[in-house]
């Protein structure tokens, strides 16, 4: 009940914010309050119970069977916390760099947050779709209005890629709703559809899964659908990149965990489909790392490293063991933290030097020691050095996927080496090489200010804490991951061809 209250307040805060977000401090206040309120979720969600916590169920469009249903479980809880904690930091990160049309900018951030939280909370497929699309317009405008040089191209590409996937998902959702309604009015409640899907095989399940999978794969982004991501990340303003990387990419993986896999387990676990997904995940891991290696632009390097990290998440999901699933969720969280921090750091140095080209820097550690320290810690966590958060997730994914998918995990493991290569090499060129450029010498005395240190501190704490003592997070997600894996496995066993059963 505590949680329900806090969630309601979250929603109403956002609505109020939309109308009157008159300044950056108001936005910061709203996000700050929201973050504090959502901290209550940590204690109020009973992760082990199979029920949804704080379920709210209101009629919205009864004629179409569309309801306003929200509720959260252990997985959603983590992502909601990630969102509410990243948002105020993202606002602080763009504190001084956003100078034009600030009112509209912060209003859009608030709308965006409503959409993101809505995606994680929705238990009605139509509501989910609406929330899924709601994020699109604010992000499109944020990239397009406050972005860099090629912002027009990047924002349109981002919009179109996401939209083609999600509109196919729309058709699939309607199909599913009509199927669950069984001739009567359609039903779109998540639980009801889950029951209907388990009761019998859905006609055309392969295509429905495909429609969901494409929508989510674009967002993740999986290998062939990833080309929007470097453009969008590079052109977006700092807060936009942080939100894109830390939260919005997670919606794709969340979609797989919440919708695509549990609704169509027999398709998702079909050997061919599974192989395709795993191959694409592994290609993403290796390809992202290799492309990151040759990027001259640091922001683009981080963007490609996201492709690689998210490949780990997909590997973990489709390996379908409890460990790999938990690892996937852990990578999701820790990628949000470390990549968010990386983009914030890039924003800070960009504000000072107005360049992101790695070769323009060198020897920054001598003039900005605090910045150098932060960047080193965050880079290490992004590589996945033991003792940081990045290690835990990737290790769990590899551990969990090795028994069932040895070859894929062997190939994926090589990317840890590549990650070290591209990240350490970039860090070396930025902060450690000799200080020869006069522009960089001029940075002396412009080290991080208190605002910047303050906003990085929670992320650094999270990096170390999750790396040393990840148990609380793992504990929270364990029950949900376990339930998912067992449900999928059960369906797989029940759909095995009958003769095999007889052979035993």
């Amino acid at each position, binding site marked *: 009940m505590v949680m329900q209250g806090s969630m309601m307040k979250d929603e109403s805060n956002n609505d109020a914010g939309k109308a009157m977000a008159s300044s950056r401090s108001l936005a910061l206040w709203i996000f700050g309050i929201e973050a504090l309120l959502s901290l209550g979720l940590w204690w109020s969600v009973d992760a082990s119970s199979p029920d949804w916590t704080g379920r709210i169920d209101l*009629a*919205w*469009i*009864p*004629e*179409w069977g569309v309801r306003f249903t929200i509720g959260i479980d252990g997985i959603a809880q983590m992502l909601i916390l990630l969102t509410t904690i990243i948002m105020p930091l993202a606002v602080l990160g763009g504190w001084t760099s956003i100078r034009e049309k600030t009112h509209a900018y912060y209003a859009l951030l608030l709308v965006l947050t409503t959409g993101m939280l809505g995606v994680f909370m929705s238990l009605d497929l*139509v509501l989910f*779709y*609406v929330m899924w*699309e*709601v994020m*699109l*317009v604010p992000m*499109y*405008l944020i990239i*397009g*209005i406050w972005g860099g040089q090629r*912002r*027009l191209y990047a*924002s*349109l590409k981002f*919009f*179109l890629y996401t*939209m*083609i996937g999600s*509109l*196919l998902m*729309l*058709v699939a959702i*309607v*199909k599913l*709703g*009509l199927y669950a309604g069984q001739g009567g009015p*359609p039903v779109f409640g998540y639980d009801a559809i889950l029951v209907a899907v388990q009761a019998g095989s859905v*006609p*055309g399940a392969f295509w429905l899964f495909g429609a969901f999978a494409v929508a989510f794969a674009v967002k993740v982004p999986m290998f062939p659908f990833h080309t929007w991501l470097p453009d969008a990340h590079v052109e977006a303003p700092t807060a936009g990149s942080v939100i894109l990387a830390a939260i919005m990419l997670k919606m794709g993986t969340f979609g797989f965990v919440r919708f695509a896999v549990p609704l169509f387990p027999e398709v998702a676990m079909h050997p061919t489909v599974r192989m395709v997904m795993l191959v694409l995940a592994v290609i993403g891991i290796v390809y992202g790392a290799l492309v990151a290696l040759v990027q001259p632009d640091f922001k683009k390097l981080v963007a490609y490293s996201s492709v690689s990290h998210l490949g780990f998440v997909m590997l973990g999901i489709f390996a379908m063991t409890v460990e790999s699933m938990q690892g996937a969720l852990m990578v999701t969280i820790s990628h949000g933290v470390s990549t968010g921090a990386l983009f914030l750091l890039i924003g800070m140095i960009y504000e000072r030097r107005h360049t992101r080209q790695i070769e323009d820097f060198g020897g920054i550690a001598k003039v900005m020691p605090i910045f150098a320290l932060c960047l080193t810690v965050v880079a290490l966590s992004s590589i996945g050095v033991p003792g940081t958060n990045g290690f835990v997730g990737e290790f769990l994914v590899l551990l969990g996927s090795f028994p069932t998918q040895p070859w894929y995990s062997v190939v994926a493991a090589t990317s840890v080496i590549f990650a070290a290569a591209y990240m350490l090499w970039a860090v070396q060129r930025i902060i450690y090489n000799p200080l020869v450029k006069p522009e960089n010498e001029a940075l002396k005395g412009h080290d991080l200010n208190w605002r910047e240190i303050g906003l990085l501190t929670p992320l650094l704490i999270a990096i170390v804490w999750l790396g040393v003592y990840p148990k609380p997070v793992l504990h929270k997600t364990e029950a949900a991951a376990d339930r998912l894996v067992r449900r999928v496995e059960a369906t797989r066993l029940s759909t095995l061809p009958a003769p095999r059963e007889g052979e035993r």
Partner: protein
Amino acid sequence: MTYDLSIPAQLSAALMPDLLLMAGAMVLMLFAAWRPDSDEHQRAVGYGSLGLVLLTMVAVVYMGLSGATAEKGGVIAIDGYRWLVDLVILLGAAGTIALAIEHNGKDSITQPESHVLVLFAASGMMILAAARDLMVVFLGIEIMSVAIYVLAGMNRRSVRSAEASLKYFLLGAFATGFLLYGIALIYGATGQTQLNEIGAQVQRLELVSDPMFLIGCGLLLIGLGFKVAAAPFHMWAPDVYDGAPTPITAFMAATVKAAAFATFLRIWYESFYYAFNGWANVVAALAVLTMIVGNVVALQQKNIKRMLAYSSIVHSGYLLVAVVASSALASTAFTFYVLAYTLATFGAFAVVAAMQPAGETDARIADYEGLWHVRPWLATAMGVYLLALLGFPVFGGIGFFAKWYLVQAALASPAGLTRLAVILVVTSVISAGYYLSVVRAMFMKPRPDGAAAPGPVGPLSRAVMAVTVVLILGLGLFPSRLVGISSASGFRPYPFSPALQIGTPFGPGR
């Protein structure tokens, strides 16, 4: 109350709103001729027309709420479908007149008759919405079209307006020829002109593969396809929409289309349902062609009126999907869709009209660059209309639910139109390209140096924008009420029989 339509007095009573509008229009016509043309007189007649439209709306709502029905099949229908379409038509007429009162000054149009012609066109449309007899359909189409031919050429100082009028008139005359010939052949095949009687004959005589009947259907399809601007009968639309005065363009793009589709749907559902296998593939192909052609060509447009013209062609393609879907659900999805489409189109054209400087007719998308920096509210409103046309949730409000409803109708249709639904959503991704190009120009590009600030927006145009934005966003968050109203006013394909086996366009599949 139940009307017996064979008694003239009761027939007149059932036509009360239509007659009210026509009689009022005639009185206003006399009043318009009373004084020499001037801007004041034009305004006075305009306000009078607006009042008459609102009065007719009240009459329609009264008739709708009175629960009137017809005793048995007659030449006109008395059902919720008719009243809802009437409301959409009157909403469009009100929007047109409101915009025209202020826009006429920019085009130097001083003839007060321009408003009265809108009223006559609207009454023709209302007859179309009611028609249950092919002769009445023809009557309605002619009343509507003749008024529109004149309205398209209302700006006598503009060469383009004259071209638009002549083009529309010549091609429209051809289309009427097709229509009439189609009616004749269908009469020849069935011996009937009344829609339900034709439907019964099609079933009794098994006309699904009868050449004369099918050719008649085809000719009717061509005639109506021209009126709704479905590809490949759409070639007139961009030129006519571009040349006509902007409020009239809105009227043609939204309201004429709604009325023509209303009768299209009724004819196809009531008369040709049993010949589904004969025409479904053709209409589905027409829908696909219209969606693809409209969307792809719209991408190339630099002129916003032409872009919106192609976008209206695209929406015809979407609505053709509702015709193929052939179910009660599809008819309700249709009424919901045209309402959403009318709101968004009128809003968009209100902005276009407000942005046009006096005398000049070329409305380039480039003129909208940086609009957000000088006119934030105008730009935001335009953004809402474009997103509504795109069918985007929350920001496009009701536009999303309209598309949702249509997809649902296609998927739930007994014919199982999954592929058609997929084509619908895929082509609507293309439409993001041109709708967003305007959004991009308004929000993301800087205002060009030396660009003249758009003139002040008149109170009536503001009212049109405010009403449309509020309705689009409000109904987009709480569509439940409207869904209830539209689903109560759907009608089933007649003669309805769930046992009828109908094939699937583009082969089997579901």
